[in-house]
């Protein structure tokens, strides 16, 4: 299987009914390093290759990822790297790593090992919905299988030793992607984001670090990894996420009770643009698809399903579009093709009377 084969699929975080609604996907990531090896940024190429070999062998021997495919960053072209990033499987840092950078991926994309990103090993589990505990348990099982073979850099005082001290201890970063358009429409989004900040949680846009909140999708994650055990980190974050999801639900209910025309206007405008635009940028597409997502959930639209929106969310991203067209495209040409593609998909959709 090659990266291009992923393009026709929906992605681990968008695969089933649990990815409808406010919590789109849950992700857990464990940072680990091998004892006696320099961390990837500081290691030389031979060292990174050695670590890659050890991790890949351990993964195979442990049976932790039974059907995994291996993708070498060294041999991954721009479009493929871009596709992997858009599917939230790898970071820009891993995409740029070159020799020694690698990805071991279960075919359903739910479990991945990122090798020689910031740390030697990142065990990543992505699931639809907000089941952080389930994601943690899966990551924990993979980790336990791997640690039987690999000797990790570990200290009894600081736990798992990571390239950046901000990840040491458990090395656990958990996050949930939330769709918070209701709170935006009721003007309640800012206080919620501020409260999350006060709780020392990080809030990022859909693209991860450094990205803004395109499509009103926010990734909320823990920042503290030392001084708390894994179940506490997961439980604390889950509680807050459930709270935010409840707030979003209340906002949606309030809109539909007090000012349904606000939601209808937002959805109708988005549909009008997606059905008529001749040039469409990817962020723009994300914003309007986000509005249609709300429209489907509030039953304002006909002949459009959540699965179709989820598919378009990925298909309209630059890398996916380029792969679909099977040729390198200039940005403005891409915007035109994106508009054509979305227009065609939206042709039959209509507002409920």
């Amino acid at each position, binding site marked *: 299987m090659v990266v291009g084969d992923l393009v026709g699929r929906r992605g681990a975080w968008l695969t089933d009914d649990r990815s409808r609604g406010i919590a789109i996907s849950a992700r857990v990531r464990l940072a680990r390093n091998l004892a006696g090896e320099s961390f990837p*940024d*500081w290691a030389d190429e031979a060292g990174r290759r050695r670590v890659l070999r050890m991790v890949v062998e351990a993964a195979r021997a442990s049976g932790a990822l039974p059907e995994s495919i291996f993708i070498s960053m060294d041999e991954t072209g721009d479009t493929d790297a871009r596709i992997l990033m858009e599917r939230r499987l790898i970071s820009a840092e891993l995409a740029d790593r070159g020799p020694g950078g690698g990805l071991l991926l279960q075919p359903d994309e739910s479990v991945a090992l990122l090798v020689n990103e*910031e740390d030697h090993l990142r065990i990543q589990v992505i699931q639809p919905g907000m089941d952080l505990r389930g994601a943690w348990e899966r990551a924990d099982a993979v980790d336990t*299988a791997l640690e*039987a073979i690999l000797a990790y850099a570990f200290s009894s005082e*600081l736990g798992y030793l990571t390239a950046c001290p901000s990840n040491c201890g458990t090395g656990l970063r958990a996050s949930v992607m939330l769709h918070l358009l209701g709170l935006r429409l009721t003007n309640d989004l800012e206080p919620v984001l501020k409260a999350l900040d006060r709780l020392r949680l990080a809030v990022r846009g859909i693209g991860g670090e450094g990205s803004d909140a395109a499509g009103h999708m926010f990734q909320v994650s823990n920042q503290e*990894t030392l001084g708390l055990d894994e179940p506490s980190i997961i439980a604390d974050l889950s509680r807050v996420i459930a709270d935010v999801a409840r707030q979003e639900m209340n906002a949606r209910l309030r809109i539909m009770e007090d000012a349904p025309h606000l939601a209808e206007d937002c959805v109708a405008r988005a549909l009008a643009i997606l059905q008529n635009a001749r040039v469409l940028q990817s962020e723009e597409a994300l914003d309007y698809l986000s509005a249609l997502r709300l429209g489907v959930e509030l039953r304002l639209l006909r002949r459009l399903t959540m699965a179709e929106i989820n598919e378009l969310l990925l298909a309209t991203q630059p890398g996916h579009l380029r792969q679909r067209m099977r040729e390198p495209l200039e940005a403005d040409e891409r915007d035109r093709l994106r508009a054509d593609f979305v227009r065609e998909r939206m042709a039959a959709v209509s507002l409920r009377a």
Partner: protein
Amino acid sequence: MNCEDCHQQPAVTTVTQNIDGIVRERNLCAACARHTAQKMSSLIDVLFGVEIETPAGGKAIRPEPECDICGMGRGAFKKNHRLGCAECYSVFAHDIAPIIKEMQHGERHVGKIPARERANADRITLESALKRAVREQRFEEAAVLRDRLRDLVPEGAAKGGGDK
């Protein structure tokens, strides 16, 4: 004493400079010291390699602390807050402690422990208990401890050797 450069501010540091082989010591204010440092060939060397000390504290030049294992110097760590290897945690402990205090919930790990680390910790505890028991001639207890030690996984290897 006023700064030998700007003659305006009180001198707070002594900077040792090697200019064309001639070593000079100059008493400078903080701003001029910083300025001088920036003019020197390698900022990193100056900021992290050469210790600038107050006149009362002597004028020692200390080499940059460096990790024996991976060779990372403090300057490189300070630049992007990433360490070179696990050993750097000991080498740069003083630089890391405030970062951990600022960013983390606590200063000690309380989460998962890899099986082989757990086994090693158990071994150390059992070995010292065994020694104590033998020394104190509590032989029955010693026999139990010896059996428990034997049941532990071999040193360095992990329990099970391959959980599926």
